[in-house]
C-alpha cells in the first residue's frame, strides 16, 4: 500500500515537472483588436502590438530601451554628405512563405510606402527618400533628398517593415514576414495565434506558440488574469487593481514608461477654441496631478508639452500651463467667453473615460460647461480623427517622437503654424545631436506657448504578468509586444 502511494506520488511529481519544463507557450492580453494585420497600411497601434518584431522586421529595429539595433540590415554606411545610406542585408533570410528576402524586396517596400497612392499611416517617415536602388541581392542604396541623421530610427518603425511583393495583397489578413514567429490564425473578435518560425535566420525564439487575446473590458481583463486564462497583460486597462496584483505572489506588476503623450486634444478651428486665450484658459484650468491620481491611480508623469519626459531632449514646460483657475476665469472674461459650452468626446480607454470626467469637473470650476459623449473606437476615428467634428477629446499619442504631427495642418487638431513647419524642416536637415536638441526644445516651447492642446500626462506602461515570465519589455519605446526574448523561468 505504502509502495503504491510512493509510486503515485513519484508519478505525480514527474508529470508535474514535465509540465513545468514544457511550458513554452504564452497568452498575451490586449485591450484592442487590430483592424488588420498589415503594419504598412494602418494607423492602429494594435497592429504593431501583434506583428512588430514577431512577424515583420524592418531594416533596423527598436531595442527595449528605445535605442536602434540592426535587424534585416546587418550594417549600413553613410556617405560623407549624410545623404546616401548603403545597407548591407543579412544573407539567407526567407519570408514565411519560403520566398527569399533580398534587396528587391527592400526596394519594393520602401517605394510602396512612399508612393503617392500609398496608404501608409506614417508617410512622413519616407518623405525624405529620393531614390532606392538594389545594387545586388544583399546591398541597398537609399539616396535622401537632404541629410538625415535619423534615417535608421525612421526605418525601425512598424510602418517601415519589409514586405514581399508576392504576399503583400494578403498581409492584411494573413501576414507573411521574415520574423521569428509566423502567423497561424486570426479568430476575429477573439484572438490571433502565432507560432515559432523554424527557418528563422537569426537567434531562434524560446517560445513555440503565442496567442494574443483581445479583451477590451477592464473587468473581463481582470478576471482573465486572475483565472490564468491570460499569462500577461502588457498594457493592463484597470490601474485600480494593480495594488491587488502586487500583493499576489503569482503576479508581477511591470511599471514602465511609454511614448504615449496623453493630451486633451483641442480642435483649433472650432469656434471659440480658435482664440488662443480660450485655449490658454483651458490649460490653466487643468490640474494634472488630480487627473493622474483620479484616473490612473497615480501612474503617469505630468507633461507640459507634447514630448516624452524620458527623452534627453525633453524640456519641462509645465510652468506655462500651471494650474491657476483664477487666471483661467480672467482669460475667459477677456475673450468674452463666459458661459462657454464645449463638446468633449471620449474614446473607450480608461484614461480617457475617467480622465474626461475629471477634466469636465475642472473645466466646470472655471465656468466652461462640457457635454460628454462616450464613443467607441470606430466612431471616434470616424467622427473625431477623420471628420474633425469635435471640440475636445482625450487620447494618448503612443508613437515615438511624434511632435511632427503638429506640422500637419490637416491633422485632427488643425494646428496651422508655418513657423512650426519651418522648425520641423530644420529638424529633418539637422544631424548634429546638440542642434537637434535645440530645435526640438524650440518646437516643444512653440506648441506649449500656442496652447495647441491641453498636455496632461505621459502614459505609464502598467503591465501585469505571471511572475515566472521573463523578457517582456518594461518600457514601450514603440507600440509593440516583442516576444523574441520572452521565456518561462523554470
Amino acid at each position, binding site marked *: 500500500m505504502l509502495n503504491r502511494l510512493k509510486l503515485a506520488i513519484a508519478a505525480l511529481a514527474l508529470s508535474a515537472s514535465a509540465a513545468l519544463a514544457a511550458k513554452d507557450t504564452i497568452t498575451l492580453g490586449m485591450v484592442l483588436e487590430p483592424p488588420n494585420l498589415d503594419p504598412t497600411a494602418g494607423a492602429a497601434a494594435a497592429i504593431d502590438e501583434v506583428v512588430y518584431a514577431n512577424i515583420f522586421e524592418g531594416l533596423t529595429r527598436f531595442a527595449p530601451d528605445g535605442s536602434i539595433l540592426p535587424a534585416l540590415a546587418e550594417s549600413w554606411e553613410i556617405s560623407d554628405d549624410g545623404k546616401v545610406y548603403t545597407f548591407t542585408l543579412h544573407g539567407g533570410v526567407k519570408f514565411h512563405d519560403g520566398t527569399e528576402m533580398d534587396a528587391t524586396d527592400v526596394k519594393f517596400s520602401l517605394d510602396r510606402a512612399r508612393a503617392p497612392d500609398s496608404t501608409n499611416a506614417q508617410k512622413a517617415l519616407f518623405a525624405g527618400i529620393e531614390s532606392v536602388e538594389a545594387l545586388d541581392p544583399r546591398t541597398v542604396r537609399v539616396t535622401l533628398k537632404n541629410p538625415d541623421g535619423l534615417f535608421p530610427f525612421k526605418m525601425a518603425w512598424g510602418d517601415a517593415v519589409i514586405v514581399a511583393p508576392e504576399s503583400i495583397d494578403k498581409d492584411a489578413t494573413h501576414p507573411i514576414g521574415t520574423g521569428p514567429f509566423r502567423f497561424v490564425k486570426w479568430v476575429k473578435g477573439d484572438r490571433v495565434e502565432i507560432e515559432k518560425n523554424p527557418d528563422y535566420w537569426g537567434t531562434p525564439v524560446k517560445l513555440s506558440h503565442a496567442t494574443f487575446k483581445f479583451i477590451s473590458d*477592464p*473587468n473581463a481583463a*481582470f478576471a482573465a488574469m486572475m483565472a490564468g486564462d491570460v499569462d500577461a497583460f502588457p498594457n493592463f486597462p*484597470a490601474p*485600480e*487593481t494593480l*495594488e*491587488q496584483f502586487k500583493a499576489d505572489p503569482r503576479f508581477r506588476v511591470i511599471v514602465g514608461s511609454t511614448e504615449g503623450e496623453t493630451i486633451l486634444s483641442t480642435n483649433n478651428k472650432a469656434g471659440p477654441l480658435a482664440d488662443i486665450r480660450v485655449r490658454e484658459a483651458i490649460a490653466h484650468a487643468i490640474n494634472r496631478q*488630480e487627473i493622474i*491620481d*483620479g484616473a490612473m491611480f497615480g501612474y503617469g508623469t505630468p507633461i507640459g508639452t507634447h514630448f516624452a519626459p524620458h527623452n534627453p531632449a525633453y524640456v519641462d514646460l509645465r510652468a506655462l500651463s500651471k494650474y491657476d483657475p483664477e487666471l483661467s476665469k480672467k482669460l475667459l472674461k477677456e475673450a468674452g467667453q463666459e458661459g462657454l459650452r464645449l463638446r468633449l468626446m471620449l474614446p473607450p480607454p480608461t484614461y480617457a473615460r*475617467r480622465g*474626461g*470626467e*475629471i477634466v*469636465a*469637473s475642472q473645466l*466646470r*470650476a472655471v465656468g466652461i460647461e462640457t*457635454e*460628454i*459623449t*462616450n464613443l467607441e473606437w470606430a466612431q471616434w476615428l470616424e467622427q473625431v480623427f477623420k471628420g474633425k467634428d469635435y471640440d475636445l477629446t482625450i487620447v494618448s499619442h503612443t508613437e515615438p517622437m511624434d511632435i511632427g504631427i503638429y506640422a500637419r495642418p490637416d491633422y485632427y487638431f488643425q494646428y496651422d503654424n508655418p513657423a512650426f513647419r519651418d522648425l520641423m524642416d530644420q529638424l529633418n536637415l539637422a544631424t548634429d545631436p546638440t542642434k537637434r536638441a535645440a530645435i526640438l526644445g524650440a518646437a516643444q516651447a512653440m506648441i506649449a506657448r500656442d496652447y495647441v492642446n491641453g498636455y496632461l500626462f505621459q502614459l505609464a506602461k502598467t503591465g501585469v504578468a505571471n511572475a515566472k515570465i521573463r523578457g517582456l519589455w518594461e518600457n514601450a519605446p514603440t507600440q509593440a509586444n516583442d516576444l523574441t526574448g520572452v521565456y518561462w523561468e523554470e
Partner: protein
Amino acid sequence: MRARLPLQLLIGAAIFAAFALAALVSFLWVPHDVTALNIAAKLAPPSREYPLGTDHFGRDMLSMLMVGARTSIAVAILAVGIGMLAGVPLGLWAAARRGSLIDEIIMRGNDLVFAFPSLVIAILITAVFGPSATNAIIAIGIFNIPVFARVSRGAALSLWTRDFIMAARVAGKRAFRISLEHILPNIANVLIVQGTIQFSLGILAEAGLSYVGLGAQPPTPSWGRMLAEAQTMIYTAPRLAILPGLAIVLAVLGLNLMGDGLRDLLDPRLRRARQ
C-alpha cells in the same frame, strides 16, 4: 365595508416612498456636490462626513445615490407616461372597433413591437441617436406602448358586453364618449397596477442602459453607471458596487410589492373573494 390595506402594499409603498423622498430632497439639498470631484478623498470609508463613503473620484456615495434615484425615477416615470399616453388610447380604440381592420392593424403593430427584444432595440435607438437620458426615455417608452395597449384593450373588451354600456349605446352615445366616460374609469385600476409594474421595469431598463453606457451621460449620476464603474474595484472597495446594486434591487422590489398590493386592493373580484 372597507377592505384592509394589504401588507405588501404598505411595505412596498414605504420602500418606494423612501426613494422618492430621497430623490425629491436631492433637488434642494445633497450632503456633497456630485459634480465636484475630490480626488484627495477618493475611496474613503464611511465616516461622519461621508455616511456611505466616497467613490473612486472622491464623490459622496450618499449624494450620488440620491441624485441617481432622481435620474432613475424621472426616466421611468416619463417612459411609463409615454407608454400610457400612446398605449391606452390605442387599446381603447381597438376595443371600440373590435374585429375591424383598425383593431387588426393596432394589435398586429403591437405584436410587431413585442416581437423585438426590448433591450436590444433600446440599445439600437440610443446607438443611432446618441446616448442620453432623453433617448433612453424614448427607447423605454416605446416598449411600454404595446403593454398598455393590450392591457387596456383586454379590459375594455370585457366591459363592452356589459349592460351599462349597452344602456349608454341605446342612449345614443358614440363609441368615443363611451370609451372616455364609461370604459376608461372602469379600467383605471388595471392601468394603475400595470403602471406600477412597468415603472419598476423602467427603473431596471434605465439601470441596464446606463450600465452599458447608453443612459444618462456623466456627470449625471445614475445607478447603472455607478455599478459599471465599480466593477473593477469590487475586491478593493465592494461598497461601491453593493450600494447602487442594493438601491436598484430595493426600488424594484418596493414597486413590485406595491403593484401586487394595489392589485389586491383595486381588483373588485379579488376584493370580493377576500370579504
